[in-house]
């Protein structure tokens, strides 16, 4: 997944691709977005800060970042964190070249691609990356603003427009705390809390109002009652809510499908009969599994 080729001190390298962010409206979260944008602003000698978003899975951390990148009109590169990432994966990797004249291709990670292009890099699930793999970030996140790549044998400086934001789940942070040298550089630490009922209702309304022929407010009341009874540990996240309502609608579509005809998996839509029974069934199915678990 690489695009243009660029050179670093005569070394030809492939750049990672930016992400085409989905152009969907975000409900609420204005203050959180302002915090991220405020961290990225720099006046005079001030350095842009690299915020860390902390929140439960499904509360909408990624969406907030997408919205911020759209507001800045800047390209977004996403680096997906996981346990197997090594320090060098953060910067550059090599693969056997498709070009017969060359033996190897250097492929820059999304982080370094954003650094070179002056884009925004979003390190998702940074809490899952092992501490020793995060070590190269130290020089990037302070006033040095560069990364050293052993594989390339080069020092790569960040473009002045480069901005970084990272996100992690609360549970990852509780299980294995980020090392202090990273945590002290990832500031501000912005907590993305659970949205309130008004926001959840608005999200459901945006997604399903046209597609449900049953009183939506009655369904929402039922949904909140079910949630309170089965999961008092935390309120629903937008992801939980959308998945449950979405599945309820699919159940309605499935029931409405003509049993004499082959089932079409796409374009099958008859949500007119979406009732509270569908919602209860969807809810029960989802709550066989622990809610609020990992994404």
């Amino acid at each position: 997944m690489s695009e243009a080729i660029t050179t670093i001190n005569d070394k030809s390298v492939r750049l990672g691709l930016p992400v085409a962010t989905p152009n969907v409206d975000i409900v609420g979260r204005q203050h959180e977005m302002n915090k991220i944008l405020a961290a990225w602003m720099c006046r005079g000698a001030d350095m842009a800060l690299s915020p860390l978003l902390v929140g439960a899975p499904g509360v909408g951390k990624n969406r907030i970042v997408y919205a911020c990148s759209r507001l800045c009109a800047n390209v977004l590169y996403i680096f997906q964190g996981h346990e197997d990432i090594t320090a060098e994966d953060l910067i550059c990797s090599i693969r056997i070249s498709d070009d017969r004249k060359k033996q190897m291709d250097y492929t820059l990670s999304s982080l370094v691609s954003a650094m070179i292009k002056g884009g925004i890099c979003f390190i998702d699930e940074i809490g899952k990356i092992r501490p020793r793999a995060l070590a190269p970030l130290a020089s990037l996140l302070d006033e040095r603003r560069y990364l050293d790549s052993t594989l390339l044998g080069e020092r790569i400086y960040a473009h002045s427009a480069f901005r970084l934001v990272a996100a992690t789940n609360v549970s990852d942070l509780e299980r294995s705390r980020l090392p202090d040298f990273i945590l002290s550089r990832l500031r501000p630490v912005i907590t993305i809390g659970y949205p309130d009922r008004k926001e959840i209702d608005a999200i459901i309304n945006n997604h399903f109002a046209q597609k449900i022929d049953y009183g939506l407010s009655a369904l929402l009341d039922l949904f909140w009652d079910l949630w309170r009874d089965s999961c008092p540990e935390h309120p629903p996240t937008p992801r939980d809510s959308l998945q449950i309502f979405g599945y309820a609608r699919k159940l309605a579509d499935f029931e409405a499908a003509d049993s004499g005809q082959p089932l079409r998996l796409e374009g099958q839509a008859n949500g007119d009969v979406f009732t509270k029974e569908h919602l209860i069934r969807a809810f029960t199915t989802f709550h066989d599994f622990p809610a609020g678990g990992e994404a």
Partner: protein
Amino acid sequence: MKNDAVVLKIGPAILQVVPAIHYRLFFARAVHRVCISSKHRPAAIAVELGPETAASVALWIRELACQHKALPVLLGLLIKNRLIPAGFRDRAECLQKQSCRDLSEMDGDILRERLNFYPERLLPLSPTDSIIEAIRFAVVNGLPVYGVDLEESADDDDQDEHVFQQPVYGQPLNAFSGEAAGYAALHAHGEADHRREYAMASRLKTLLDRHGNVLFTCGLAHWKRIEALLQHPDVRPAPVPVPVGRSSTDCRREIVGPSLAVRFLDLFPAVIPSWEKVRAARRCKMPLPDPNSLLEKILGKSFQKFFSRDGIRQRSAEGQTASPDMIRRFSGYLNSLALLEHYPVPDMALALSAARETMDPAFVNTLAGVFMDFPWVKPADFPDCGYLTGSLGGGDRMTLVTDAGKEEISVRPLKPAGQDVLIPEEIIEKEIRSLNRHTSLLGDFSWLPWDRLITASSIKAIAASRQGSQHRAVIIDNSILDGLDVKATLRSHSRCENKIYVRERTIADITPGDSLHGFPVVWIFTDTADHDDSWRKQVFTSRHLRPHARNKRRFDRLLGNSHMIPIVGYGRRAKDERMTCDLFSGLVIYHPTCFTNRQHTLWLEHTGYRRAPICPDDDFSGEVDGLKAIIRDRLGVNIEAHDWKMGLIIYALPFADGSLTVVGPDGFQLDETVLGLARRLNITIHQTSLNHFSIGDCQRLARCHFAPCTTLEPVCRYAKDVEQAIGESQDAYARIVPRQVTDFGMWP
């Protein structure tokens, strides 16, 4: 002198209006300037309050004006509300049908959640609010004051959040309000607002006929619509009710504690002394203090305190770092944030939020302390008033302390002028604690830090017992991790890869929800018990839990006057004059014991009253006869016939939800009877070793103190001398309690 108000001519009469953002000094100042100007001085004052509420406020301000030059900060009126928004009519009917109960019989929490009903609302007498300033001036100068709003109305809470650009001191009010009021009018109004605006417009017309020159101040969002109604010929003048005085039950006078008060005092409390000076001088042109320089002083003082030699030494001891770089980072972020939130000068909420996100927690406390360093009104100054303060749970809950005791109340959420100020919990706790000093002791309760430690350790044990054998092979990279993986290394060599593999422990595949499902947890601290050891239990009385029950009928049926047992142990009791201490050889913990009473009740309801033993007698002693009978009835097992270690596990089995966790010394084996019982009940027993915990923690877990408590709600607090006697701060271990426990049921 130029008029600060918006002037509207209606026939021969003149209406001077100050459309205001509530609690912002800029608008109180505008009201004051209009009133003291000889040229523009109005003949009467009208405010956006109900007639009786306005009369109650005026009456109290008149009494205060006799004794105090400045308005004491902060006082407030708690006003009863009886109305539910009309839009909730169908929902209310449905709720009554479903529950077969009248709305008046329903629990306050349900009414709040489902119908947005709050039994009370708070009206703070903030010296920086334009309405209060208008009434103050009217009272002192003998002008008639009228409340032209409806006395009672129910907000449906569907209004958009207005993001106003905050005014800059020196900016003309006309220019600001013209732009901002037009913007505010574009936003959705609540259903009650239309009726209120109509009433205000028609009553104002009457007052204009009567007095000819009236000053009116109201919320910025209402003004454009009221203006249109005033100019509409079909809106006829309506009589302004003459207040007969509110009954004391409808309108209570209270002191508003600092942690709540800061929401209603302009940018920060430090502006008030200077504002009172300006008021007292009664000079139109006297400038207000520059809030920017006040903020700089506050920040400077906080930095000085934080980076002082003592401060640094203390933080170094706590392992926290502090560098001057932090100041640059914090200041830059705060300025950018203020710019994006449309604040010419950051207020206390923004400054604390920026500090919380960029600095050490210690700095947040220092900064909050400096912001709140203010001569607040003391309970002794107003002995007849209750004391209203914030709640640790946050949200719309407040704590009201009166002579009758302490209660948590729900008050209609007050929209502060800016964002809500999040006061550090330490400061709220300190405030609540200061009120407890004179309250009597409530009896002996388990030591909360121990409850926190046993809860956090139990959750750790649940995770450890499920990840015990989860290792994976990884290629060696500087560290040998959990040792050499011989099999993987041999396989690698057989494939001629010649790589060395080590064993890495994977992160537990356990979610927060699972952790709570992993209870009960059985702890066995030693192989051999002392010969004095016997069965002991701890209890929670239904008296403390019942107020929090959502379904009180069910609570009464299932718990009644019985007690819930959170812990059963095997050990002995040591007692001295001051407190008692249980020394356990082993124990069963049925659920997180550091829950608040509200959370305990929620846990009971959430688990259908099935996950904790309910003791059927009134016996507070350590005996467990009731529990033994339960075990005999349910499992047909006589506990006395078993070893105490197996007995603990048997006590836990009937209350497990598919799994049970046992923490024991190395080599601890379950006997066949217990395994057979677990199989019969379809319960998996997960075992883990005490070696996952430090020796110090294990010793601490085996020793539970009971101490006299000064307050129970929202959390147990103890006297200072208890801390000294135990040698541990009552805030100890607060940070190790996982979020799924602290947040359990705490969402609105």
